[in-house]
């Protein structure tokens, strides 16, 4: 009886690990897409609306879901409280603080950080160019993430269950 309970536990936990990794593969393209959506809003608000950056960030923080929500919430907070330090620094700090809670990987982070260097510091035409470039880069990463998802998501799930089974069989 004890053996049976132990075996179930092993199987369950190993499957859980597999499902968790698979979930990360599924989440990554979704989060990148979410970011792409916010960049479109950013583009409209900056080039046509000419609204203040902190207002735009607050608005995005209100309408988006986690984890993108906390990126903009943190950025808005940094912009209005950090005694005028550069926009890049506010943005970079926000990216760093939200990153552990995302499923995204380094390439996307680099795109975001790089984008921050130009955020807010030039005229509208220039801002539009930079936003569009960041969007193209993010779209590329999204493609890669989707590919990885197709390739690894199911595999991770099956591997989790199978590895659990293997261990159970070996122990028995």
């Amino acid at each position, binding site marked *: 009886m004890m053996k049976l309970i132990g075996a179930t536990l092993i199987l369950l936990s190993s499957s859980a690990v597999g499902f968790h990794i698979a979930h990360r593969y599924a989440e990554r393209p979704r989060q990148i897409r979410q970011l792409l959506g916010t960049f479109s809003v950013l583009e409209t608000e*900056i*080039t046509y609306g*000419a*609204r*203040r*950056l*902190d207002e735009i960030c607050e608005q995005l923080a209100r309408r988006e879901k986690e984890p993108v929500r906390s990126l903009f919430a943190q950025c808005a907070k940094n*912009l209005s409280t950090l*005694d*005028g*330090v*550069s*926009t890049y620094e*506010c943005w970079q700090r926000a990216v760093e603080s939200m990153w552990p809670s995302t499923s995204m990987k380094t390439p996307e982070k680099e795109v975001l950080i790089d984008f921050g260097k130009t*955020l*807010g*510091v*030039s*005229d*509208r035409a*220039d*801002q539009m160019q930079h936003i569009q470039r960041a969007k193209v880069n993010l779209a590329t990463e999204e493609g890669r993430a989707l590919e990885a998802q197709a390739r690894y998501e199911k595999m991770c799930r099956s591997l989790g269950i199978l590895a659990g089974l293997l261990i159970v069989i070996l122990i028995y």
Partner: protein
Amino acid sequence: MNSSIWHLLPLSIKGMIESLPNRIRSQLEEIRVREGRPLEVITPIGSWFISAEGRTTSRPEEGYCPNRETCGKMLNLISNHSLYAMEEELRRGYVTIQGGHRIGLVGRVVVEGGQVQHLREVTGFNIRIARQVKGIAEPLLPKLMPRGRLVNLLLISPPQCGKTTLLRDLARAVSVGTRSLSSQKVGIVDERSEIAGCVGGVPQHDVGPRTDVLDGCPKAEGMMMMIRSMSPDLLVVDEIGRQEDSEAIFEAIHAGVHLFTTAHGRSMEEVCRRPALARLVEEGVFGRYLILGRTRGPGTVEAIYDERMNHLVYKGEGVG
């Protein structure tokens, strides 16, 4: 001092200004920040440099010199990290902020096709603190409105003598109504956002309940727009002087609208030497001329003339 200015100053500068003696702090007219040169404050009682400990000094070498980082911070605070939203302001060289205060900006100008595109590397700021002085127009009104009727008025004054302050209060007084004159519809064409100090189209100064403001609009065009769209009884316009201004004025007064306006100058003679203004004076457009100076502080009324250049006696005080 006003809180809307406090949050534009980087902490280092804010600390220095805050530690100024109250006598100076309460009278601040301008705070001047220039990269690599000493921080300066200007008040009606004099101007000083500020040392790093927040003491006033008249020796430039003792003054605290803001560095590039401080100026960058200040620009970030002024623009709210959104330079793209300030394109128009950077082209004009000043920003109006909440409370009607204005910040003049200088730096490297980017020119395209002979036209100023915008400012890059902003390295100099002049924070001009606006103070609305309500009620300064009251004692003047009987002289400026013979038999309780509106007449066209030209305010003549050198810079910094309270011309705009007086014009603003006159607009408010007419809009509210006085003992001899019922309240009138007033239209302000505020080319440089000085009279009403609009932020986002909303006047930051009290310009009266029946006053419409056309903010940032060229004067000549704005006067015509105002007449067509808002049917004002009184038009208020700042600093006329160009040819097209005087043409628009002729149009306006023939449309039955009254006009309060200002011109730079120290005396009637000086004003008459400027071609656009001379014609207006010759044609007898204005019913009253008021000359401001600062013999007894800014806003001293030096003289009032009627349409035939008769000197009307007025014993006034400095009005701020």
